[in-house]
C-alpha cells in the first residue's frame, strides 16, 4: 500500500460577500498517495482553484469559510498557525499558477525570484552558492543558467511558465499543485512543458495535483482523475475507469466527452451539454446537475445523491446506482 500524502475529508468552502453566500466547494473528499498524479477536471466555477487554494490554506481571509479537514502528512492544514504554514508553503507544497504573464514580479530578476524560495527555506547561504543552485534549477527546466540575470519581460510565455515551475520545484516539494499550467501556452510549447513536468515527476518522485479542463492532458499525464461539477466530485477513478467509454459514467462526464471535437472521429455536429453551470449562490436542490441532465427524474430534484463505488471508481448519480442494481439482479438471475 502506498503512503498517503494528502487526504481531504469533507471539505466545504463558502465565500461570503455581503448577504450573498457562494458555495464554491461542497463536501469533497480526496486522497493523494505519494508519487501519484491526480487530475482535477471541471469547467470554470466548478471549484477547482478554490480546492487548490485551500490545500495551501491560501483562501482570501475575510470572505471565505472553510470546513472539513485537509490532512497533509496527517496534520490538518486548515488549523495550522501562520508560522507553521510558512514552513510548508513553497517547501513541501508548492503551486504553479495558471497565468505565467502575471505571476512573476516584473521588477525582480528571474534568478532573484527563484533564489528567494531557497534562502527562505534552506537558510542563508553564500551568494556564489545561491547563484549556482539557481542556475542548476533553471537548467532542470531547460533554461540556460546565464539567463538568471534577466527580467521576466525578456522571456517568452513558455519560458516564463518554466521559470514559475522552477520556483515551484526549487525546494523539491512533495506535492506540486499545478493550476492549469499550460492553458495560456501554444500546443507545441504545452507539449514541451508537460514533457518537462513528466521528467521532473519521475526524478523527484513528487505527487502532482493537476488542475485542468483539457481531457487530453489528463489522458497523457495523470494516474487518477476526479471530475468536479458545482463544487462536488461527481466522478472519481483511475484513468482507465474514467476514459473507458464502455463503463458506467456520470452524465456530466459523458457530456464533457461528447462536447469536445475529437480529432480521430468525424462528427457532423457536436453534442453540447444543455444549459449553463449553476450560479454558486443559488445551487439547485438535490443533484446539482439535474437541470442540465438528460436523464433527470423527479427523484433527482431532491435529497442527497447516492454514491456508487466499485473498486476505486465512484460515481455520484442516482441513475448509475439504479443501473448498477439492475445489472446485479440480472447477474443473480
Amino acid at each position: 500500500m502506498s503512503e498517503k500524502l494528502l487526504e481531504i475529508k469533507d471539505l466545504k468552502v463558502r465565500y461570503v460577500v455581503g448577504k450573498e453566500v457562494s458555495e464554491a466547494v461542497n463536501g469533497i473528499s480526496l486522497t493523494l498517495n505519494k508519487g501519484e498524479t491526480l487530475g482535477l477536471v471541471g469547467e470554470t466555477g466548478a471549484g477547482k482553484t478554490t480546492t487548490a487554494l485551500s490545500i495551501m490554506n491560501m483562501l482570501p481571509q475575510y470572505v471565505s469559510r472553510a470546513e472539513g479537514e485537509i490532512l497533509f502528512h496527517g496534520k490538518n492544514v486548515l488549523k495550522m498557525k501562520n508560522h507553521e504554514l510558512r514552513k510548508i508553503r513553497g517547501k513541501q507544497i508548492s503551486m504553479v499558477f495558471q497565468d505565467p504573464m502575471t505571476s512573476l514580479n516584473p521588477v525582480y530578476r528571474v534568478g532573484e525570484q527563484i533564489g528567494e524560495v531557497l534562502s527562505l527555506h534552506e537558510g542563508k547561504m553564500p551568494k556564489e552558492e545561491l547563484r549556482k543552485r539557481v542556475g542548476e534549477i533553471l537548467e532542470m527546466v531547460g533554461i540556460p543558467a546565464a539567463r538568471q540575470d534577466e527580467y521576466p519581460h525578456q522571456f517568452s510565455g513558455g519560458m516564463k511558465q518554466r521559470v514559475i515551475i522552477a520556483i515551484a520545484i526549487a525546494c523539491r516539494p512533495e506535492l506540486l499543485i499545478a493550476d492549469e499550467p499550460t492553458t495560456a501556452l501554444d500546443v507545441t510549447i504545452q507539449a514541451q512543458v508537460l514533457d518537462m513536468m513528466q521528467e521532473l515527476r519521475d526524478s523527484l518522485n513528487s505527487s502532482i495535483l493537476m488542475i485542468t479542463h483539457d481531457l487530453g492532458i489528463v489522458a497523457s499525464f495523470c494516474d487518477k482523475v476526479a471530475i468536479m461539477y458545482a463544487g462536488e466530485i461527481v466522478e472519481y477513478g483511475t484513468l482507465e475507469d474514467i476514459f473507458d467509454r464502455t463503463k458506467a459514467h456520470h452524465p456530466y462526464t459523458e457530456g464533457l466527452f461528447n462536447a469536445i471535437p475529437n480529432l480521430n472521429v468525424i462528427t457532423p455536429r457536436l453534442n453540447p451539454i444543455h444549459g449553463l453551470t449553476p450560479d454558486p449562490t443559488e445551487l439547485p436542490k438535490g443533484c446539482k446537475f439535474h437541470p442540465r441532465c438528460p436523464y433527470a427524474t423527479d427523484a433527482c430534484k431532491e435529497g442527497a445523491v447516492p454514491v456508487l463505488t466499485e473498486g476505486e471508481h465512484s460515481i455520484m448519480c442516482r441513475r448509475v446506482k439504479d443501473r448498477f442494481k439492475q445489472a446485479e439482479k440480472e447477474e443473480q438471475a
Partner: protein
Amino acid sequence: MSVPVIECIELKKYFDTPFGKLHAVDNVSFKLEAHKTLGIVGESGCGKSTLGRTILGLHKATSGKVLFDGREIQDLPAKQMKPLRKEMQIIFQDPYSSLNPRDTVSQIIAQPIRIQGILKTPSEIDARVQELMDIVGLGKRFANTYPHEMDGGRRQRVGIARALAMNPKFIVCDEPVSALDVSIQAQILNLMMDLQDQMGLTYLFITHNLAVVKHISDDIAVMYLGQMVEKSETEALFKDPLHPYTQALLKAIPIPEIGHRNSIKNVLKGEVTSPIEPKPGCRFAPRCPYATDACRSVEPQLKEVKKGHFVACHLFDDAKECTE
C-alpha cells in the same frame, strides 16, 4: 468557376518597430469560395489575427491585394469602404473586452444598424434586434442587461448577433471559442455552423485549436511566422500532413483517450523565432529536424504537390508540381 468571396494576392503587412520591420503577414495568397470555411491555424504571434484584420481593412496592407467579390478593396477610401463593411464582419476572441461595458445588449446589437442607417425608426430597430437575439438564442429578458451581467457564452452570442446585424456575406471569426468552456464551446460552434447553412455565410476561422478547426473548416491553412506553410482540404491535411511544422503541431495535441499516457513527446525543440527582420531561408528551419543548408539560405515557395494540397518546404523540391 465563380468569383471567390475573398481573394488575397501576395498580401503583406509589416509593422514598424524600433528594431526594424516586423513581418506579421508575409506574402499570403489564397482564395475563399462562397459558403466555405477556411481555417487559419498557427501559434500565437504567427500573424493569424493580423491577416484577418488586414483583409477587413482594419490594418492597412503594406503591399499586395485583397479582392472582395472580385473588387480590390485594400486602398479604398473610408467613404467607399463604409457600404462594404456591411458585407464583411468580425467576431472577436474575447467576449469580455469586445463589448462596450456601458451599453446594454440591445444597444450593442443595434449599433451597426444605426451607423449604417439601414433602419430609421426605433421600433424597426427594436424589432430587428429582437430578431437577431432570437437567431443566436438569446432570451428576450437579456435585451436590457449589461455585458458584465452575462456569462462568457452569452456574451459571445451578443458578439455574433452584432456581426450578423448587417446580413454579411463574410465573417472573420478570430478565435471565437477560445475563451469559453468546452460545453459552451460546443454550443457556439453548433450555432455558427447552423447560421452558415441558413444564411450562406463564408467564414475565415482563426484558431489555435486544431480539434475545433478540423470540426468546422472545409480547408485549412497553417501559418508560421507570417507565412502560409501549408494549405489543403481539411481531411487531407490531418491524414497526410506534409510540412514538418504541421506534423509537429498534430503530434503535440494531447488526445483524450486511454493508451496515450506519456504520449506527449517533445517533438519540437526551441521556440518561435523573432518575426522582426527575419533571416533569409525557411523561417521554420531553426526548429526543423530535417533542416539542411538550403533551408537556411533559400526561402521555400508555396507549391501544389498534390491536387489542392499546397506546401512551402524544400523537402518537396523534387516533387512534381501538380498541374491538374
